[in-house]
């Protein structure tokens, strides 16, 4: 039976707790009385994913079976989440590969010939062939890729985008399809925004995505509604959602997600060697090792049918897996920022992405009330090494060096720099032809970070590079005790402290 998440109050007998910090996790002793929020254990996964999908397709929610909606001669497009979900990258076989096989088996039985697959990359980077092969599986990849029928979305392809009304431009193939089957992995609270958001953000033009993820939408989520409505009216969608469990790490790294007092002898003995050996390995070797860490996410449920019915059902199952009851808000919240980042697969996690990840985990993954009280202090554990991938994050390099050194105010960032980053021909060229994130990508992450950050007071990064912390508008500290000292003026000398013991992910339900 899977144990639910719980809140532990640190006492005499509480061992040091694992805190992720980039590629060098650490064990930390928290003061007595600290509330530690542990995620739940994984719910049982479906024994046979292919059969589970086949059953869902035959008995969908609020819709005819998929087979009844297919007919020979129709144009069908299948869209699926890109590599950002889940993190870390799932070891082979990826659930999407099995789901796509099940869907395509039904499509083949219906005699549909005109089929194409599109990855919902949006302003994220294009996927490499190896990554597409990993996501879709050898069967699907070999069947469609060579003929150009398995592609990534391109938000800058003017010839490949169609106006669907309301100032919204969408992928032409998708807009012209008789039916779109959307395959989604429900792994975190982002998914509760609904599949329509993923569709619009993954297939829209740059301007369309900017309306969804720009500053206005970050400050007022309702600002994105007209875009979602236009997309929903333009495209007929059959959704297939797979809700993931919480097996965030595959062996041999599985102990990183275990409760510390349940580590076995081998794990306890290996930890000192890991902790002492990692600093000597060098940054590149550590990153390569960290990049090899894979997850073992299983699928706890498969839902299919009309998006309006699947969205709330998937959200309910996600909550059943991830929600943890937290008794009260805290004056100070601690979060570790690990190496795995949705936008840093096969790339270093730069300071901008680390800040986004830490703030998002602490301040947005809840059911309505953040764990941190308004004006409270946020303590992050992250190295904040100014290490950027010029291949994947060219816009981030300039954003960090030029924009953040001038201002951290999101309004000023938008007014002074957004047009330039959006239209820069070099960023656009790298985005369209290489594996680079779009020029607007760092700005969107910063808007989300800055808007969420308005809720809290000081942000201190333990173990973080001082220059990077200062550039981000944060403070740096060497130890947790020093961090508490820094924030003492705002939260007092005996603040209530909560540590969110992630990963795996959790959604806090604050009483």
């Amino acid at each position, binding site marked *: 039976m899977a144990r639910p998440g719980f809140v532990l109050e640190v006492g005499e007998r509480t061992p040091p707790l694992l805190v992720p910090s980039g590629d060098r996790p650490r064990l930390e002793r928290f003061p007595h009385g600290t509330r530690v929020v542990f995620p739940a254990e994984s719910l049982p996964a479906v024994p*046979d994913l*292919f059969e589970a999908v086949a059953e869902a397709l035959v008995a969908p929610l609020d819709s005819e079976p998929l087979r009844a909606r297919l007919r020979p001669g129709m144009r069908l497009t299948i869209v699926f989440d890109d590599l950002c979900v889940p993190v870390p990258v799932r070891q*082979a*076989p990826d659930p999407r590969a*099995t789901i796509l096989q099940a869907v*395509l*088996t039904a499509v*083949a039985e219906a*005699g549909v*010939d005109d*089929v194409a697959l599109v990855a919902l990359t949006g302003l994220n980077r294009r996927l490499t062939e190896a990554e597409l092969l990993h996501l879709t599986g*050898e*069967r*699907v990849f*070999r*069947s*469609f890729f060579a003929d150009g029928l398995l592609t990534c979305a391109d938000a800058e392809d003017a010839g490949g985008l169609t106006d669907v009304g309301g100032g919204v431009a969408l992928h032409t193939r998708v807009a012209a399809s008789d039916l779109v089957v959307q395959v989604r992995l429900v792994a975190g609270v982002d998914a509760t925004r609904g599949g329509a958001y993923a569709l619009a953000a993954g297939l829209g033009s740059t301007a369309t995505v900017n309306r969804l993820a720009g500053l206005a939408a970050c400050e007022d989520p309702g600002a994105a509604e007209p875009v979602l409505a236009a997309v929903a009216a333009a495209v007929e969608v059959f959704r297939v959602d797979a809700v993931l469990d919480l097996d965030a790490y595959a062996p041999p790294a599985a102990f990183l997600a275990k409760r510390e007092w349940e580590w076995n002898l081998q794990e306890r003995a290996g930890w000192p060697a890991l902790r002492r050996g990692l600093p000597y390995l060098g940054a590149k070797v550590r990153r390569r090792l960290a990049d090899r860490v894979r997850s073992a996410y299983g699928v706890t449920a498969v839902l299919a049918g009309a998006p309006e019915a699947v969205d709330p059902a998937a959200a309910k199952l996600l909550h059943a897996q991830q929600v943890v009851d937290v008794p009260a808000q805290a004056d100070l919240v601690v979060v570790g920022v690990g190496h795995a980042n949705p936008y840093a697969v096969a790339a270093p996690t730069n300071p901008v992405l680390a800040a986004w990840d830490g703030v998002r985990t602490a301040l947005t993954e809840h059911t309505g009330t953040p764990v941190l009280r308004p004006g409270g202090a946020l303590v992050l554990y992250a190295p904040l090494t100014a290490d950027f991938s010029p291949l994947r994050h060219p816009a981030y390099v300039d954003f960090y060096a030029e924009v953040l050194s001038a201002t951290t105010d999101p309004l000023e960032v938008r007014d002074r720099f957004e047009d330039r980053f959006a239209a820069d021909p070099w960023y656009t060229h790298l985005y369209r*032809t290489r594996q680079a994130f779009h020029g607007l990508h760092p700005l969107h992450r910063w808007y989300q970070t800055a808007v969420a950050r308005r809720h809290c007071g000081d942000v201190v990064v333990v173990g973080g590079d001082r220059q990077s912390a200062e550039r981000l508008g944060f403070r740096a500290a060497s130890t947790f005790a020093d961090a508490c000292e820094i924030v003492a003026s705002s939260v007092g000398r005996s603040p209530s402290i909560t540590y969110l013991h992630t990963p795996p992910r959790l959604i806090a339900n604050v009483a």
Partner: protein
Amino acid sequence: MSGGAPGPADIDGGARRPARHRRRARVYAGGWARTKPAERARRGAQAVLVPAVTGRLAVDVNGAEHLDAVRGAALLVANHGSHLDTAVLLAALPAGRRRSTGVGVGAGYFDRWPRAAGSALAFGAFSLTRSDGRPTSTAADLLRRGGTVLAYPEGSRSVDGFLQPFTDPTAARLAIDLRVPVVPVALRGTYAAMPRGRSWPVSGRPRVRVRFGRALTPATGEDADAFSTRLHTAVADLLAEDEATWWVALRRPAAAPEPSTDGAVWRRVWRSTVPLPDPRRRSRIWRD
């Protein structure tokens, strides 16, 4: 005593036969090859054999997730084009499953003692059936212990490299009696790598492909012949998928068409001996 080649001995006893026939009877049943010392020796032999196979041949393995999804006892049924098939398939299996795999072969395979003993030791080979068609007990014993049995229901190697009808329903019968899943396996390129008449692979590093399919289980009330037909279709579909693509095979599920047999055996052999292309080598197009 007839002057012809002696048949296999009855493992349940039966009439007393001369000593050399009793020795062949022990090989036939594979009893000695399943002892602990023999299994250790086999592990050592396979530790050399597997790297030798993967070094000498370029082995592509697909569909391993279907095999990983099967826990415990399993039957593998594969097409049989070459003596290389067993070595290639064993090299494609995960180490844990390989250790508990036995290879069921036709009774006639054990006519010569050195080959029989060598196969039994290196591959865990045993006779799947006796000369009267009844199954030996070795396969059932191995499956009951949670092991894996590899079988070739075509009965013998294909003459032209194409899939032949499944004439031996023993594997299907075992699956029904013991309620064990059957994983269909398609092997391509082994006929081209070492066709009939050769005892060593062709020069170069020929490419071979192993493709595992989803495990099949007998339906309620299904008999061995019907289930064997389903297995044949599954292997044929896998071969068609490997030759074209999965999507093409899915929409045209018939087995790979065979050219006319009117005096054209050489054309089928010719087609079966075309080397498989390297999937990683693709013509490069300079894109702007």
